[in-house]
């Protein structure tokens, strides 16, 4: 079929290009970072415009000291989400490397697994060194939703892509923010460089897997995929709002605070901005419907 063979050659070209880039730009992360012994508490740990209070009255009502404390714990939480997200994606990719159906991708998977392992190391190092902890992952850790293997692979690589694109929204902006500490900028910009390749691959494989399964499943099944991914997008962006973070920053009623933020129109606008590029990709390729309610 013409569309599938075009996609096949497109993914092969992409794989050749990004494997070459992985080899040419390889760095030793264990020597790359000069970790300061400590970071000052009174500083912005992430760009104020990226915090979960941005666009709400709390951005004005809280003192600068409170906001800086919140920026510290939000950044530790953001890197913790990275640690947990990478663990999940490594498990899924390792499960598929050198198995039928992933012959072409397996060479790239070796680079992907190696790079993601290193990302997990530097995010965990940041959390433990400057926050003294990694926030606990409370997402469901057991298989609740069982689906056919080809749909499962589509959902796995879609989840990886969504996770990487949301993270990249933050990495890109934090890496460019000259008001932030150099180590904060460096961790984010290095991650952004590597993730650009992973996102390029992710988009190709998601398109390919979707093209392969559409002729095999009824419309009803594809609608379930659409609904699941739309809900996953929303759940992913909502996971940035953490009661444990608000508690650590001294917010008196962290659960009510979280609910208020999630319901605030300013936050809905920010959430839509964070997800825009990803939603455009999934709708453009017919994987989710344009009517998806992501507010």
């Amino acid at each position, binding site marked *: 079929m013409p569309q599938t063979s075009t996609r096949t050659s497109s993914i092969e070209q992409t794989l050749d290009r990004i494997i070459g880039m992985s080899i040419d730009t390889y760095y030793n992360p264990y020597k790359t970072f000069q970790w300061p012994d400590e970071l000052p508490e009174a500083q912005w740990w992430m760009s104020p415009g990226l915090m979960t209070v941005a666009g709400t009255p709390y951005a004005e009502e809280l003192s600068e000291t409170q906001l800086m404390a919140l920026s510290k714990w939000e950044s530790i939480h953001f890197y913790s989400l990275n640690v947990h997200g990478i663990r999940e994606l490594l498990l899924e990719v390792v499960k598929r490397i050198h198995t039928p159906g992933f012959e072409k991708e397996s060479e790239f998977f070796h680079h992907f697994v190696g790079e993601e392992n290193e990302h997990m190391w530097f995010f965990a190092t940041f959390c433990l060194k400057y926050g003294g902890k990694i926030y606990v992952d409370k997402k469901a850790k057991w298989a609740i939703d069982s689906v056919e293997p080809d749909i499962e692979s589509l959902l796995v690589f879609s989840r990886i892509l969504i996770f990487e694109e949301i993270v990249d929204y933050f990495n890109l902006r934090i890496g460019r923010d000259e008001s932030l500490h150099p180590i904060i900028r460096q961790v984010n910009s290095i991650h952004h460089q590597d993730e650009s390749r992973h996102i390029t691959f992710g988009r190709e494989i998601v398109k390919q897997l979707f093209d392969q399964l559409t002729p095999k499943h009824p419309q009803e099944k594809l609608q379930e995929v659409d609904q699941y991914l739309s*809900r996953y997008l929303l759940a992913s962006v909502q996971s940035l709002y953490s009661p444990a973070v608000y508690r650590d920053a001294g917010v008196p009623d962290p*659960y009510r605070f979280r609910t208020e933020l999630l319901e605030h129109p300013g936050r809905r606008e920010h959430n839509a901005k964070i997800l825009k590029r990803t939603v455009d990709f999934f709708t453009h390729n017919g994987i989710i419907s344009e009517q998806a309610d992501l507010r």
Partner: protein
Amino acid sequence: MTEDPRLASVKDWLLSRKPELADLDLDFDLIENRVIDSLSFLEFVFFLEELTGRELQATAETVNAFRSLHSIQKEILDGSL
């Protein structure tokens, strides 16, 4: 026996997300019947934390505590999960 008002809140929370269900028996499997799925689980944990006033240990080993209203009462509302 009078129902624990906290358990009534849990039931309301779950039913509000599954309007097709009229009621929930104490032993109805919430996971098997997809009243809770992987995408709603985190919000459910936060709801229960707010209700109990303490952080919950949600791990693969503690999944059974979330499986029914009965186990939620025993392990979470009256227990120390």
